[in-house]
């Protein structure tokens, strides 16, 4: 059986040339991939600023619901839904709910149930957060 012309024409020189081009192509692809990965690498992962805290019906009128993942408290008052940040405006610790309102476990600041400062060192009230209901009926808290 006669051998094909292509098989017989692949000389050692052609084989080396083909191999080196393949190596060059693989290197180029790898280099480009690495460059793309380097340039697109998110060194600063995005900070979450929107939190879907579930269906609005989970928050009955008069309720005060802690959402530690935000961290915030969702209030359902006569005027509708509102949210207070649980981040202490003094040095960023997460305040805890108490009978009188909120207290910071780090430096002892206390806040009324509406977020107003009762005792420092915090110099400002707990921050009000924007809260809205999305088309699916879920409450969404925006921290920025």
């Amino acid at each position: 059986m006669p051998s094909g012309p292509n098989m017989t024409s692949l000389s050692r020189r052609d084989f080396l040339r083909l191999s080196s081009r393949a190596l060059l192509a693989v290197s180029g692809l790898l280099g480009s991939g690495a460059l793309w990965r380097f340039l697109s690498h998110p060194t600063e992962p995005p900070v979450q600023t929107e939190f879907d805290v579930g269906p609005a019906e989970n928050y009955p009128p008069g309720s005060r619901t802690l959402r530690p993942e935000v961290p915030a408290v969702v209030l359902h008052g006569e005027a509708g839904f509102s949210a207070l940040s649980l981040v202490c405006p003094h040095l960023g610790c997460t305040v805890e709910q108490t009978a009188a309102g909120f207290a910071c476990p780090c430096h002892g600041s206390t806040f009324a149930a509406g977020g107003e400062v009762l005792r420092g060192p915090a110099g400002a009230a707990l921050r009000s957060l924007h809260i809205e209901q999305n088309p699916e009926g879920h409450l969404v808290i925006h921290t920025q």
Partner: protein
Amino acid sequence: MTQRLVLGACVVLLAAAGLTWWRQQGAPEPLALTPTLTGEVEYCLTCHADLAQISASHPVESYGCVICHGGERLALDADLAHSSMRGGKNPSDLSVAEQSCGGADCHSGPVEEWRNQIERVKSSIMATYAGAIAQARYTFGAQPDLTPLFGMRAVQDTTLPSLTEIYTLEEFNPGAEAIPELPTFAEDCLNCHLWAEPRLGGAYTRFTGCAACHTPPSSTQAQNAAGTHTLTTAIPYTQCNTCHYRGSYAVQTLTFTERPTHPVSRLLDYYPEEKQIALCELTLDCIDCHTHIETMGCGDIHPDQFSIDHLCNACHGTLYDLPLTRTLSDPTEIAFRFAALNPVIDLQLGDTILVSEHRNQPMWNIRLLPDGTYELFGKASGERFVFRAVKGSGCQQSMEQQAAQYCHECHAIGP
């Protein structure tokens, strides 16, 4: 030739890619933390997630690591991440404490002077060592009296007017002294102050700066381990012991005799044999009586420890006067702040607490009881002690003899 170069470069590139891939396979998954205080992501927890919280007042979720320690927050390579850390393992060293611990919301430059701790510490007797230096220079004739002229670093009183009328100290330079004994004094005796690394030996192991006092080894660590990740205001006497009563100095010969071992019995080993002590000095921790102003400085430059020393009458009063007190009527009173940081006592508005004679500081852990006695809660131990005033007792001490040595004549205890 060109082709060979290109091929060589390709091989190198492939090898580098393979090596990078191999290294990444062994690297831990980056663990990001975005502290609420800074809002900037940092990857320190990738390797340090097992570190205990440093204190209830500085939770890592709020502060992160970098705001205190410095370092490269986005680096995953240990050497790079640690390359710009402040103070190595101790960001509270006084050379960097301003950057690490300072700031108007933290420990320097606030509106309230009492919270300006870093500046006060730098001019405090524990940092300047001014009294010991003046004593040594005076003893060897380098200065005509005991007026302090030098400190371990040059300092200036920034809180004028000064009660002590000492406004500046120059930096002590033993090498510039003409008297040959003074460099020896510097070598043997100047390792107690807060700028200095401690002497070798387990009984003396401590950090420098703020951590010299506020970072005692935990109870689970060996007593000589100064490596714990802790900041506390509940400082046990053993931490004070790393400088105080760790041996005896002889100014005449400029020699220091170390205590050979870490004290086991406080009564038998802790105090020098010649020192008389009362029961409170055996059962309480130093900070139960000594206020933050006494220990960390009041802003004035003091000539020696005796000018700020705490006397027995601060707690017990005299034959004719009860100890100074203040009834808490303001919820913003700093006594509440201290009690919240170290919750050993449930202070309430209307409580009457002792205050110190020196700058009228609250001794917030000591409260007047309805029967006229006083209760003291150990700041480190949490233990409750009840004591009474001298007034109305059988004590016959002269009003001119209020120093501890006179009280010890009757109230000293011994082995």
